[in-house]
């Protein structure tokens, strides 16, 4: 992909900056390219949220509490504290779903408008599994490449031992 001039030179156009999406779209327009940028934008939002978590608005917070309410009715107070402590972590983990969902659908149940991430999906374990599904293929490629290097080295050693030039 072609980058617009100076898109990486100034601090306010870094990938974590809120201007990043505008720069990306401008760059696409300059290059005359077309198509969805949802994948790139979703990853940028995820990283931005990981580095500097954004606060949930009242409506989103209410929505999360409503979804937690049935689980907490008979839960002792110390368990409730644990849930409160976990909410930011789980929200960040759930943000990982954005990457996966944005690839397959624009109507996947996650609303990331206005920079506020509202998780409507179950969070926790499923979010980590989604992250794994996203990251594993490239890791497997790396492992295969490393094994191939070792295999080639072994073959060379065996040939050398056999006296084959």
């Amino acid at each position, binding site marked *: *992909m072609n*980058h617009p001039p100076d898109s990486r030179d100034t601090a306010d156009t870094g*990938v974590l900056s809120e201007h990043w999406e505008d720069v990306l779209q401008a760059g696409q327009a300059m290059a005359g390219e077309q198509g969805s940028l949802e994948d790139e934008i979703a*990853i*940028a939002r*995820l*990283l931005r949220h*990981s580095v500097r978590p954004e606060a949930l608005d009242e409506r989103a917070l209410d929505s999360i509490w409503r979804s937690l309410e049935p689980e907490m009715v008979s839960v002792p107070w110390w*368990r409730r504290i*644990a849930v409160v*402590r*976990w909410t930011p*972590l789980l929200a*960040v*983990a759930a943000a*990982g779903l954005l*990457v996966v969902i944005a690839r397959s659908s624009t109507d996947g149940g996650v609303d990331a408008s206005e920079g506020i991430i509202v998780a409507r999906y179950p969070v*926790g*374990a499923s979010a*980590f*599994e989604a*992250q*794994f599904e996203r*990251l*594993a293929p*490239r*890791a497997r490629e790396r*492992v*295969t490449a*490393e*094994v191939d290097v*070792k*295999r080639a*080295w*072994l073959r060379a050693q065996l040939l050398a031992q056999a006296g084959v030039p």
Partner: protein
Amino acid sequence: MLGILVGVGLTFTGLARAGRLAPSRPEAIVSLAQLLEVEHRRVDLLLDRGDTQRALALLDALRREPWPEGDLGTQLRHDVYGRLLRLRIDEYPQDPSHWTGLLELTEEGLGLRSDANAEVTSPNPFTARLWALHGEVLEGLGRDDDALLAYEKALAMNRVLLDRELQADP
């Protein structure tokens, strides 16, 4: 002088335990990788047929294989443990009695049972997933604080990996 020697010794011991100085055994890694490639496909086939029990037995047998030391060997091992644990957790999600057995498995996979500290590996999704599964098991046992720590480790590793992906595909 003695202090210097002890310091050097500890440094080398630490590096060796981290897999940095592990004796290079490419033949072990190559043969293991070939074995795993075949066995993972067998597991895929069994799962496609709905034969979860045999898939679990196969993964459990793989778990008992001798595993080479080093970063690559650890990643391959964590991949097997992750798959085995995911299947076992999903198999009996409502049965609380199996969480204790699963905890032994996650601790074994992460090297928590043999050492005071977990194995040191470079960030990779297989280890991150295993930490997340460890958190899931701890959560199942009601150990919320320990579960939180495990989730944080998984998340920290995934952050690094996502950052790398972005740098690789700007």
